[in-house]
């Protein structure tokens, strides 16, 4: 722990310009890698992967950085998905207004639910989120089916604004990639600020952070709201991509997907979230067509991750890398 701190300080010592240059390099790497996998997966799937990565980034902020495992994060994805559809249906077909509306809706639900769930930790936090997700699923499926279309779902149509014709796959791909880079950049900035250090400290030991005089409740609440807003954004983007919404966007049984993606990539790092998102999507997209028992495979993979491979892919790469540099230093 101590050594990591010192390393972090050394890296941070480059000043603001060095930091910005480093995050620009990150953005370039992410863009390049998504363009590199583009011919492999095709444009539809890559767009899907990118959107899922945004969702994983939002979840990872809450789980990886602040140590709160939500077992009902589909609710926040679903809120975004349903908001953008209903907004396009009833208020305006401008996709940008609809996107902003769904981000606001995601933040709003975080503001409302936050004070209730954020006071709890561990299993309680996971299960309350699950309970809220169940309520949300019920609302979308049954209670509000007049507006949400119930089990059948509903389609969403958007107008063409300037060059942004979201009917074209290439436009959606570009826009989603831009959104991912923006989310990454904002999160990177946030996490390297004092706020980022504070939420990491809350994960390590909340009581001590309180002793230092910080109002941890407020920081946890803010983090929760950011996480729900990003998840909603991802939900809205997937509606932009698919063009229709179904209750599967808010189904609590799918909550495990994002947890698995975060774990396999490595919780608590932005690159880990991206790698996990792509890896999970690749597994679930391709494995399902080759292996009929793919759920069982997923179960065994989860067990292996939990018992043997807790740091995920990115954590493993980092470990190897630091070991190599240490050897070279010697």
């Amino acid at each position: 722990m101590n050594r990591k701190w010192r390393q972090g300080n050394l890296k941070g010592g480059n000043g603001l310009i060095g930091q910005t240059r480093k995050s620009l390099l990150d953005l370039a790497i992410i863009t390049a890698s998504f363009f590199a996998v583009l011919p492999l997966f095709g444009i539809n799937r890559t767009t899907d992967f990118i959107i899922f990565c945004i969702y994983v980034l939002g979840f990872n902020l809450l789980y990886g950085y602040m140590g709160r495992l939500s077992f009902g994060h589909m609710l926040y994805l679903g809120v975004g998905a349903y908001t953008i559809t209903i907004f396009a249906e009833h208020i305006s077909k401008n996709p940008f207004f609809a996107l902003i509306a769904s981000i606001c809706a995601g933040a709003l639900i975080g503001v409302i639910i936050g004070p209730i769930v954020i006071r709890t930790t561990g299993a309680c936090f996971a299960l309350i989120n699950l309970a809220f997700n169940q309520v949300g699923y019920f609302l979308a499926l049954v209670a509000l089916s007049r507006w949400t279309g119930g089990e059948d779902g509903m389609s969403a149509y958007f107008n063409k604004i300037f060059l942004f014709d979201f009917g074209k796959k290439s436009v959606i791909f570009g826009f989603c990639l831009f959104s991912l880079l923006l989310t990454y950049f904002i999160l990177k900035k946030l996490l390297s600020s004092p706020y980022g250090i504070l939420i990491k400290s809350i994960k390590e030991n909340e009581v001590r952070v309180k002793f230092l005089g910080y109002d941890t409740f407020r920081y946890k609440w803010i983090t929760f709201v950011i996480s729900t807003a990003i998840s909603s954004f991802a939900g809205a983007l997937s509606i932009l991509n698919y063009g229709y919404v179904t209750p599967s966007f808010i189904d609590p049984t799918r909550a495990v997907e994002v947890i698995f993606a975060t774990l396999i990539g490595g919780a608590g790092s932005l690159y880990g979230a991206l790698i996990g998102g792509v890896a999970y999507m690749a597994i679930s997209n391709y494995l399902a067509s080759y292996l009929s028992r793919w759920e069982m495979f997923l179960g065994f993979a989860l067990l292996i991750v939990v018992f043997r491979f807790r740091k995920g892919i990115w954590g493993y790469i980092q470990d190897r890398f630091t070991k190599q540099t240490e050897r070279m230093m010697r």
Partner: protein
Amino acid sequence: MLNTIAYGLTIGGILYIISIGLSLTFGTMRIVNFAHGFIYTIGAYLLITTLPILRENFILAALATVLAVIPISYVIERFIIRKLYGVSIDYAIIATYAVVLIGVDLIKWIWGASPIPLSDPIGIDVTIFSVTIPLYRLIIIILSFVIFIALTIFFRKTMVGKIVVAALEDKDAVRSLGINVDKYFAYVFIIGSCLAALGGVLYAPITSVHPYMGMTVLLISFAVVLVGGLGNIKGTFVSAFVLGLIMAITGRFWGPAAETMVFIVMGIILIFKPIEA
């Protein structure tokens, strides 16, 4: 209305039988055990398999099922749960969820994914206080009371029970007396799993049997455990019947809202009484 209450008591009885195991594992080991839902499901499926073998004798089939669950739950305890002691609670949730994924896929492999209906094994109605309910449901209610009394005696009178109750209070103190706490936790886990399987057996003739039946019941059981208090034997009993009644009464007025109402109640209770787990 009396009919609804009788129905609610049936649900409460089954919920109690399922949740008590969950509550004990939660209270003793601090593990959120999603695999409990899988045990419940496998109980129902084993009943379907054993019924024709034992010439449709329901009691014998139920007994065979409960006995068959012992090795299954032992394997889960030995290879998954035991490795999760003291580990962060998140990993416990994920690992036991992985068990559910594997188990559900296994069930789909062996028995197929389509729902299997089962008929009421007794099929006689009884009338008490001008309420007519199937005798089967009445037996479930009585059985849940019997199990409650038996467990209370078990925890008060037997050595194993006393050790578990003491460990619920302070695990380290019990361990410092030279008692191998983990061994007793394993007993508790297996007893709880057997009861979950019994719950699955009892509930199977009332609903249809399908691979995902454990998930909803498990979520409601979590609500029962959280409302009743972790590892609180009496609290679980009361909260199971209260939530069962809430489900039945809500279901009478608006069917699809029955399960959601349980979570709303749970949310309200947790707002006023958050649990440190």
